[in-house]
């Protein structure tokens, strides 16, 4: 193997030097000359009619350039939803208008009402205070279940009863029949708590209009600039894509929240032509809490039917999912396509039925947040499995082993076809690194100190790299799910790669460079990865759903194949050999069985200086583009084991250890993969122990609107994790990669909550919702005692 093959090596990241020396270029660092500043006036009410907006006083305030309200945005359509769900009644979901700026009504605290554009941020903010909005305040409903009750305040005229859709998957009659003959049925009521994503970089945008060619440039904190451009131009503003360039430069974390087309940048692009000056906006953190798309927020009744040996016979799930006040870009597919389809987990449950009702509420929109549907599904499955094992007196590892899928490919009863997996291996390894054997002794020792120890398992599966486009289209997707990559070999042999994936922490500039360098046999330093710019990259669907390597990486691989194929033709000419006899290995084109060869760089030079070149048969240049549409999802899976110690006197949960063994398929850079797992686990543990978005039930005000009230995990809230991997390569992409970005957030909540329930079982507490705060646990223990 060549030294240049770095697949599987923890190469240190190419992008780090700029981040570590303050040279990163984030959207808020972009300052075009003569730019103005936008401030968005937001609704202080959860639900209100707008009687009148008087901006006359504000318009004459110092430094004000322009003020626009919803009425000014003539010819601007509402923000679209990218996935059409068809309900059990055969009707399309309700898609009420999502205006860029409120029109006639506001529907959540933070709903943008007007944009004030001024010379300085302070002037814009001061002027916004002078905008007089006459509100007729209406009753609001923020609770997901309450929104569907009769008599609840009606949020949209076009969505009676606040219902967006009721959708179902699976064979209900078969499930009911299986439950009727079950030896044991486990039933759980589950709340999957609402979360606020909180990338540390707040959302931001800089919109510039150029009169010279009637074009726009938008810098924006986006995970997928091409999707942003497509939605904004084609659906909302009616502009030609050719006239809009969207650049997502360095982006400071996304976790889903930066996938969507938001009102703010849309209004700014529109306004930039009207004011004919660049406009800049950076969210304050309180705006991030109020107006970034939130995640989760499910209320579920789940049942598992088992035979007398603990074999799963059927699963029945009814979920109510919040959409928030408007449908965000991918909101509708999260609690359906990305949720119900995962309810088989790692198990052979033969029949499953899941029914989901999506409700509008007077809250911020809800959309994908790290894991997106799959953490919710895993939580349902793994809480059920844990509870069933506990109720039936079967060991937690044993009940899982009795039900694991072991034969692949495996068709689940909820539409997915798992291509490969090795669930026993991950469970075994996780148990080993968690030292499960030593748990009884540790539990006894803790009991002597008056503490309650618990062990929790979570054997999760996820579906990543959502695909293929035609099947997704049949299920309601309004976009393709492929990825594009261009490999440009420069005349002197350096390679520039243009990828439609976007890195906002994932380290693509290194991982993708490893893929290219290893395939072409050139030094990694000679490979430059370009992402995040519609002006430079052919096309792209961006980064979400752990898809970048499996889908984006494969597009690059396909482009590399084309480069090698063309390189062979050039080399055959140069070496006066038949094309079929040329082999490409370690950066050299060689005539098979001889020592006659041409280096990759020589072939590149010949392509651009085609003096000795088959010009009659071959175009000059060495630059290839490929689009890749996967044939299936990928299915990362693993087992996480959490050990906790609960102090019954305070209700405090201490994580004694957290162990994870994951199967992500082939791994390019183990260091980066491990980092992704750590980050995902931190977010999963955050959900289980700390984080919860709370709106006041009466007023609809966001109560957790700052880091004082919303508990984001800090360094001393978390342990050091023990992580390991096992490999079953994905069978349908050339890298054998499955994706690793979301696994931690998917597996961790159930592992931790199962551990908490295991610990509390000794004192008779049956049910604790996330987050398992000291107050909740202490109260539950007191309730059992008294």
């Amino acid at each position, binding site marked *: 193997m060549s030294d240049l093959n770095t697949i599987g090596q923890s190469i240190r990241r190419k992008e780090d030097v700029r981040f*570590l020396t303050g040279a990163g270029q984030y959207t*808020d660092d972009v300052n075009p000359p003569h730019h103005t500043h936008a401030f968005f006036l937001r609704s202080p009410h959860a639900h209100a009619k707008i009687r009148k907006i008087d901006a006359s006083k504000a318009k004459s305030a110092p430094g004000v350039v322009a003020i626009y309200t919803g009425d000014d945005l003539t010819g601007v359509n509402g923000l679209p939803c990218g996935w059409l769900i068809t309900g059990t009644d055969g009707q399309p979901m309700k898609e009420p208008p999502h205006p860029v700026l409120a029109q006639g009504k506001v529907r959540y605290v933070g709903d943008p009402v007007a944009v004030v554009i001024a010379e300085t941020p302070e002037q814009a903010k001061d002027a916004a205070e002078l905008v007089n909005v006459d509100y007729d305040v209406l009753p609001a409903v923020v609770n997901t279940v309450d929104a569907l009750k009769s008599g609840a305040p009606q949020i949209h005229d076009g969505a009676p009863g606040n219902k967006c859709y009721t959708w179902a998957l699976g064979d209900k009659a078969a499930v009911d029949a299986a439950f009727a003959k079950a030896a044991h049925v486990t039933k759980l009521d589950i709340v999957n708590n609402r979360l606020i994503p909180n*990338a*540390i970089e707040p959302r931001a945008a800089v919109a510039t209009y150029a009169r010279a060619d009637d074009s726009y440039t938008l810098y924006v904190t986006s995970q997928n600039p091409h999707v942003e451009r497509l939605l904004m131009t084609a659906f909302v503003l009616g502009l030609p894509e050719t006239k809009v360039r969207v650049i997502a430069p*360095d982006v400071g974390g996304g976790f889903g929240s930066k996938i969507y087309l938001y009102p703010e940048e849309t209004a700014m692009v529109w306004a930039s032509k009207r004011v004919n000056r660049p406009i800049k906006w950076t969210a304050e953190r309180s705006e991030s809490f109020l107006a970034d798309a939130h995640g989760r927020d499910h209320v579920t009744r789940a049942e598992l039917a088992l035979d007398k040996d603990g074999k799963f016979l059927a699963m029945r799930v009814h979920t109510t999912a919040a959409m928030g006040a408007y449908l965000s870009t991918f909101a509708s597919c999260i609690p359906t396509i990305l949720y119900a389809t995962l309810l088989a987990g790692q198990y052979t449950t033969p029949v499953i039925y899941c029914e989901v009702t999506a409700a509008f509420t007077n809250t911020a929109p809800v959309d994908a947040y790290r894991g997106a549907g799959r953490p919710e599904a895993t939580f349902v499955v793994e809480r059920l499995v844990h509870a069933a094992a506990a109720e039936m007196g079967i060991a937690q590892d044993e009940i899982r082993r009795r039900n694991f899928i072991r034969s692949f490919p495996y068709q689940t009863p909820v539409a997915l076809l798992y291509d490969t997996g090795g669930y026993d291996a991950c469970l075994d390894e996780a148990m080993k690194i968690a030292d499960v054997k030593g748990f009884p002794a540790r539990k006894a020792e803790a009991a002597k100190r008056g503490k309650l120890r618990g062990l929790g398992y979570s054997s999760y599966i996820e579906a990543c790299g959502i695909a293929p486009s035609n099947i997704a289209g049949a299920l309601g997707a309004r976009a393709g799910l492929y990825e594009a990559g261009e490999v440009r070999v420069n005349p002197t042999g350096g390679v520039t790669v243009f990828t439609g994936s976007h890195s906002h922490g994932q380290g693509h500039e290194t991982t993708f460079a490893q893929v290219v360098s290893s395939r072409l046999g050139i030094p990694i330093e000679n490979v430059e990865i370009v992402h995040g710019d519609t002006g430079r990259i052919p096309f792209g669907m961006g980064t979400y759903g752990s898809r970048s390597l499996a889908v984006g990486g494969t597009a690059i691989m396909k482009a590399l194949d084309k480069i090698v194929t063309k390189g062979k033709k050039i080399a055959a000419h140069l070496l006066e050999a038949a094309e079929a006899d040329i082999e490409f290995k370690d950066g050299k084109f060689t005539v098979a069985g001889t020592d006659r060869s041409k280096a990759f760089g020589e072939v590149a030079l010949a392509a651009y200086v085609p003096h000795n070149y088959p010009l009659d048969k071959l175009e000059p240049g060495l630059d290839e583009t490929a689009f890749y549409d996967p044939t299936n999802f990928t299915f990362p899976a693993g087992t996480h084991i959490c050990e906790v110690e609960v102090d019954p006197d305070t209700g405090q949960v201490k994580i004694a250890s957290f162990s994870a063994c994951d199967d992500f398929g082939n791994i390019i850079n183990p260091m980066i993969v491990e*980092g992704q797992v750590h980050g995902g686990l*931190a977010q999963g543990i955050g959900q289980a122990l700390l984080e919860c978005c709370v709106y006041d039930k009466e007023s609809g005000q966001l109560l957790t609107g700052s880091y004082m009230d919303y508990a984001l995990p800090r*360094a001393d809230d978390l342990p050091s994790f023990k992580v390991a991997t096992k490999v079953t390569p994905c069978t349908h992409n050339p890298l054998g990669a499955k994706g690793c970005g979301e696994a931690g957030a998917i597996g961790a909540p159930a592992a931790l909550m199962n551990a908490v329930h295991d610990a509390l079982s000794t004192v008779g507490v049956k049910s604790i919702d996330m987050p398992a705060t000291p107050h909740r646990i202490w109260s539950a223990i007191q309730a059992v005692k008294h």
Partner: protein
Amino acid sequence: MSVPLSLTVNGKAVTADVDPRTLLVEFIRNNLALTGTHVGCDTGQCGACTILIDGNAVKACTILAAQANGSKVTTIEGLATDGAMHPMQAAFKECHGLQCGFCTPGMVMSAIDLVQRHPSADENAIREGLEGNLCRCTGYQNIVKAVQQGAAAMRR
């Protein structure tokens, strides 16, 4: 109205007249175009804006520019010497102590301050010492590792 300001930033003398309500972080980012210092929360809770004033870590969103008058300010841009990264910067790279990079400048500054005060801090002390800096990407594990490695290098 403006107030005169005279201070040293990354070893260079800086004088300016600023609006008295200007925050130090705004002065650094807007007036000096040192955009490596980031704003993550505006309210002193995330630590992304952490810089060193006379060697001590300070959240630059919690102090007025005028209050830094006469002091020596170091930002992330001022850590490297002769093109070589500070040992703490190098340790963050070596240990993969950063992902999106947004919290990183503040995290590195806090880490340097922590190690200066507690050269032999153990894992728990490092976790407690970095409690004022939020990171949403890394789960902190590799940051802790980086601080340990950076501390060892700073001792040498």
